[in-house]
């Protein structure tokens, strides 16, 4: 357990050493600011007060596009890039088992995603407060963020799995984006098929928040998500564990 904690911290340190994860976080904050400014300008010109819930308005975009992309970068940095330049051997020569290394890498990519998600919540809430909003629906929106953190884990496990089957970081990144896009498109045109894909929960807070919870369908969706997560995690680990480095 102690060894896992150390391995996990090493992976996080490696990610933080890459400036792009700080830059993209700053960009996230900037996007929030710009959206708020646009909204204020529209209100000023039209003379109407929308009192928009910035937290919920931006969650959709960030959870379905921005945060998955940043997480894919983190996963590709920690897996396929390290395999390609040989630095993965540095972790594998240390006395932490391959399982711990695998889990530490996946978990630190997820940590980045969660940090981005909750930074979004904090930044939008602070912006709303400082411009006189009352933060209506605070708990509901916080609940939405919490719920969306769950399918995000499966999206990351999918990326981890793709990183095991493709050796090139560029190809792995493209495959991740391609599959995510394809799933969104299937979702629009073939919703009955889309319901079987985990990505249809990219915004799955919509399924729960503000609605009566239908118990059985919800359990089925949770089960489906768990199933995808387990398959991606174990298939990825199987390849990672058997691989000759």
């Amino acid at each position, binding site marked *: 357990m102690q*060894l896992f904690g*150390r*391995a996990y*911290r*090493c992976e996080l*340190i*490696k990610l933080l*050493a*890459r400036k792009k994860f700080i830059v993209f976080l700053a960009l996230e904050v900037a996007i929030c600011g710009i959206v708020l400014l646009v909204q204020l300008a529209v209100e000023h010109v039209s003379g109407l007060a929308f009192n928009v819930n910035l937290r919920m308005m931006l969650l959709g975009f960030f959870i379905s596009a921005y945060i998955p992309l940043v997480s894919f970068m983190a996963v590709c940095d920690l897996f396929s890039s390290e395999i390609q*330049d*040989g*630095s*993965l*051997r*540095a*972790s*594998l*020569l*240390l*006395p*932490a*088992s*391959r399982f711990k290394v695998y889990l530490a890498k996946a978990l630190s990519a997820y940590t980045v995603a969660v940090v981005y998600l909750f930074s979004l919540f904090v930044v939008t809430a602070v912006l709303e407060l400082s411009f006189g909003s009352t933060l209506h629906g605070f708990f509901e929106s916080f609940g939405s963020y919490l719920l969306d953190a769950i399918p995000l884990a499966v999206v990351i496990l999918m990326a981890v799995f793709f990183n095991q089957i493709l050796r090139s970081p560029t190809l792995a990144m493209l495959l991740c984006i391609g599959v995510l896009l394809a799933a969104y498109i299937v979702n629009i045109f073939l919703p009955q098929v889309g319901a079987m894909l985990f990505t249809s929960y990219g915004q799955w807070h919509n399924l729960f928040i503000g609605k009566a919870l239908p118990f059985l369908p919800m359990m089925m969706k949770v089960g489906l998500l768990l199933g995808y997560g387990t398959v991606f995690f174990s298939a990825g680990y199987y390849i990672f564990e*058997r691989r*000759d*480095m």
Partner: protein
Amino acid sequence: MTEMTGVPAVRVSNMTKLYKNGRGVKNIDLTLEPGDIVGLLGPNGSGKTTIMKVIVGLCHATDGTAEVFGHSIERDYEAAAKHIGALIESPALYYNLSAEKNLRLAARVRGAGDEDIARVLALVRLDRYARDKVARFSLGMKQRLGLALALLGSPDLLVLDEPTNGLDIEGTVEVRELILRLAAERGHAFLIASHLASEIERTCNKVAIIHEGELLSFVSVAEAVRRAPTLEDYFLAEVRQKRGGAVI
């Protein structure tokens, strides 16, 4: 690190490792006692690196076993790996980090402290460049950093694949002296791959001759140079005998 008495540092039994293309090594038996400096001598592509990769757990053996201080590398990886410091092929480094940060990451997992980082940096004479990014290192500097990483935490088995690759004359001599000192004073065991017989003759007390994935002989260097004028002659004789007396 404490070594258990009577337990060999490495025991490889009837080990076979075949890659998907059918190449690799077959039926290798090798034992290293603490304090041994064993040289793996063989031509390019003979299987030296493959044997090392199985011992340190980077590759899984197709058959047979490898144990480090009594711990199976397959079944008890963490207990075995605590004893191992390794430099396999080109050093595994994070190019976007400084030398010191590379060492700090490894030290974190190994549980080694700052003074140990300073110690190994001084040992390989990289202390002046500790804060430089590895991406701007020369070949020899990267090799030195790879050696420093292997030495971190004073593991009692060192698996070094062509350790003097890219090193200057002084560096080569220093590494040889360091190996001899650590083996004599601390009883560390060394497994060293090289295709230079002279290098092994000067450094090692035992030599394993690898040829086309097979272990041709495993004898003390003293015995080898008794049977032939130099280790190089001994090596050539073994390889020619294997080829059925054919002279190249």
